[in-house]
């Protein structure tokens, strides 16, 4: 595969996915963060994995004011670029389509994020407990954000 031209990366993304792209940040040292609509995750991830042959590194789930953010990290090993697809999930409907049917590497991390944060991954092939074992209440998600009125206390 020839090296991807990152100078025209925003244009290519816009051309292919247009309204699914909500924002794009170019950070230093070959790092890009692309904010996308969560409904378009599988289509865009498929474009990176199948067409551009990127490697799925991992996903990072985190709390946000409105619910959750998940960043899916992809690596272009030919150039050292890292593309990060960021999706926002509303706390009222904390669910997103699973990527595990597309790539096995997403299996474990989605189960982990489900257990720790409480995000539901729709159509995951094996959504069983992963790190908490059987001695954990399935409704308890230890890293989930506390209720909104308990704002994070300032760090000392």
């Amino acid at each position, binding site marked *: 595969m020839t090296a991807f031209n990152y100078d025209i990366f925003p244009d290519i993304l816009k051309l292919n996915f247009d309204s699914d792209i909500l924002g794009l940040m170019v*950070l230093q040292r070959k*790092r890009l963060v692309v904010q996308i609509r969560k409904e378009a995750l599988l289509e865009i991830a498929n474009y990176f994995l199948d067409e551009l042959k990127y490697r799925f590194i991992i996903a*990072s789930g985190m709390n946000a004011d409105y619910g959750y953010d998940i960043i899916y990290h992809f*690596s272009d*090993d030919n150039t050292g670029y890292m593309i990060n697809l960021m999706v926002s999930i509303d706390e009222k409907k904390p669910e997103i389509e699973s990527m595990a049917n597309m790539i096995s*590497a997403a299996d*474990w*991390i989605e189960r982990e994020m489900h257990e720790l944060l409480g995000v539901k991954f729709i159509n995951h092939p094996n959504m069983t407990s992963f790190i908490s074992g059987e001695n954990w209440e399935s409704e308890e998600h230890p890293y989930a954000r506390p209720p909104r009125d308990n704002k994070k206390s300032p760090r000392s």
Partner: protein
Amino acid sequence: MSTKTVIPIGPYHPLQEEPELFKLYCEGEIVRDIEWETGYNHRGIEKLNETKTFDQIFFVVERICGICSTSHPFAYANAMEEVGRVEVPDRAKYIRTIIAELERIHSHLLWVGLAGHFLGYNTVFMWAWKYREMVLDIFEKVTGNRNNYAMFRIGGVRRDIPNVHIDDIKKMLDAIRPKLDLLLGAVLDDPVIHARTKKVGILTKEDIIDYGAVGPTARASGIKIDVRHDDPYAAYPLVNWKVITSTGCDVFAKAEVRLLEMYESVSIIDQCLDKMSLTKEGSFYNPVREIPAGFGFGRAEAPRGEVFHFVKTDGSNSPARHKVRAPSYVNIATFKKSCIGQTISDATIILAAVDPCYCCTERMAFAYDYYSGKQIMNGLDLIRISQQKTKELKMKT
């Protein structure tokens, strides 16, 4: 903090760094299915780091892995320097690279020893671990510790390697080269090792891509990925070296890749020492005042593959989110492909081939009957039958 943090503490070997329970479901001699349970030693490090300052986190992440204790601080430092746009002095780049490569040598030697033990070559085990001591002695001399060296900080390293130590390290490199030749010959020329490891535990290129496997596990299947080469950091772009790959896809190929990588590490350290001697002593870090809000994506090539750290900062002195992905997280998942269909006597070496910090696993691998679900063997039995198979092969040759 108001955040409610509940951390499940596992029952199995909480002092080990990577406990997992593997359940091999067997039909006669053949492994038909594999299951695992993990999280028994979940320490909540990602959450814990949200309560630590950026500088304290180095000491936490250093303890994620007990063998390669520099790979996590390296990836974390790369992530933080990306957020803070921090430049690192050349001398610190060389010191970081030297420490990381010394660690690769001792980690690979440890693996060679364990692999020898599982195959019934206890002499290889004792040799490899004896030669590993030479590297640990150097660590003790230059950092004060045999492991957990506490060398990294944002903007450079915590302490210099004075030029007077260059000769000590070079002497060690000269002494270890013939030892590596010995181990390479012992492994690559032994017909019994060939019989035990060739065409065993095959991982195709497609398997590697599907599971996102990294490091020697991927390179042994012909996939040329190495963060040091693909996304160069520290002094790796300043020295000459090559990425070792093999197309064997089996256990033998993984051993070959690791053995040959140690020569590259020796060469990298040698070049770094020469270049470091030309830099100014004492200039080993740039002070960092504050870290702005932003994202940092750091990675480093650990002995087992790519370590990935993601840090989200909010302008305070600790991270808002810190995600860590160790290479074993993606490598271990490949067992689903490499173990199934193999004989149970080969299962031990296949599980060991990805180097999943095996000291934990050997006590917790169990074999179950495929139909009744009854436990038929434990980890020690698995090693025993693996060693027995080698013994029988030796008697035949």
